């Protein structure tokens, strides 16, 4: 308990770091992963904007990002990271590889959610003369919204887990704190405390996400 009190400021800092890393990743997932997943879906064979090449390129990109050992992805991206945030170490630098993986990861979940939208909805959209953008925003996303939210929740939890590894470039965060103080220093109490913090965080995210998803689902 003493230890926990003693390290309170550091814990708060690492919670802040986790929020920054995960927050930016979630943002990246929504801003880039969502359209990416949408295009994966649309350009697929037999779908609305079938385009073999576009699909192959996007699909391969996602696969490459996802198949890279995460550690090596971080290393590989260092020049890019430096270009974007000016440095390759620290919390902000950690957000770059984390965001890239988030984008690829959420894109797949988006693709899956959209695949479950009944084709008849798209048919209705086409019959009304909806534009591409309208079909996507007013029909597809509308009908898939609870799945998209649920998927984002699943993804966010994964991002938190990935953020743990960002200690390697000095990203910090709760997970890294747990490892550094709790595990390496054998402060079991401190470790348990931080893990409980993480469980609570994840639980809160999951419950909120599930609740919103359910509330938005009016399909039956």
């Amino acid at each position, binding site marked *: 308990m003493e230890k926990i009190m003693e390290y309170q400021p550091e814990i708060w800092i690492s919670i802040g770091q986790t929020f920054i890393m995960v927050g930016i990743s979630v943002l990246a997932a929504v801003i880039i992963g969502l359209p990416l997943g949408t295009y994966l879906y649309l350009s697929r064979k037999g779908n609305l904007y079938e385009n073999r090449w576009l699909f192959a390129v996007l699909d391969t990109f996602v696969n490459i990002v996802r198949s890279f050992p995460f550690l090596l992805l971080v*290393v590989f991206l260092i020049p890019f990271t430096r270009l974007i945030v000016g440095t390759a*170490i620290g919390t902000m630098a950690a957000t770059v590889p984390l965001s890239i993986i988030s984008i690829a990861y959420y894109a797949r979940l988006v693709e899956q959610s959209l695949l479950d939208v009944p084709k008849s909805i798209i048919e209705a959209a086409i019959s009304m003369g909806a534009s591409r953008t309208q079909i996507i925003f007013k029909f597809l996303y509308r009908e898939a919204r609870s799945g998209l939210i649920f998927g984002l929740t699943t993804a966010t939890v994964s991002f938190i887990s990935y953020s743990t590894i960002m*200690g390697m470039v*000095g990203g910090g965060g709760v997970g890294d704190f747990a490892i*550094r103080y709790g595990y*390496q220093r*054998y402060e079991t109490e401190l470790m348990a405390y931080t893990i409980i913090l993480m469980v609570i965080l994840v639980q809160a995210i999951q419950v909120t996400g599930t609740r919103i998803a359910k509330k938005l689902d009016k399909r039956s």
Partner: protein
Amino acid sequence: KSDKGADGQQTEEKKDIKVASHIPPMTDMLELVKPLMEKDGYNMEIVHVSDNVQPNQMLKDKEVDANFFQHPPYMELFNEANDANLVVVQHVYDAPLGLYSTTYNSVEEIPDGATIAIPNDTSNIARSLKLMETGGLIKLKEGVGIDATQKDIIENPKDLKILEVDLLMLARSYEDVDAVTMLPAYAEPLGLNPAEHSLIEEGKSDFPISLIAREDNKDSAAIQALAKHLSGPEIVKFLEENFPTTYKPAF
């Protein structure tokens, strides 16, 4: 973007210095000298990194000014492979590698076909193999250096199985295998120290944990100040008080 001194004691700007490090006791020592550096007018930031390559990469890329986590041979490996010009500024302490076992009390007792766990990073693999050679367990190819691998074993009379696992896992796998080679940082929490418990004595160490900088900044006032404090009486006292049997000052 440097901080103003606390309590407004000084108005003069402090110089920033960034040092990458890894785990205790290295990080603890840096924490210890941080106030000393502060007094000398340096605002020292410790970058915690959970990886064994990144601190060197960062140093090479000038993202940090120095690092403190490795021994010189490991640095040499990096220099060679990456065309880098990292240099040793100050040896700080020796961390002798030891071979520990829950069941056996001497090298001779280790049976045929036993499993030995060793760290899985390049220099520690070589170091562990060398240690085993010293103990007469295996024989390595003539002239192999700090990049020796299991491929370089030419004699293994006991037909030992050598398993490479993460440094962080070594202590945890202590009970799973017949013997483990461990550094004091990991052995110490298990109540093990090289002087009393190791089955093999490493002897004169070529592996002092050292402060490393670059060719171009090794002579800067900041690095020199840090070198001075890391080899100062505070460090000696720290090591003696906390790790009387494990770590020895290397200066």
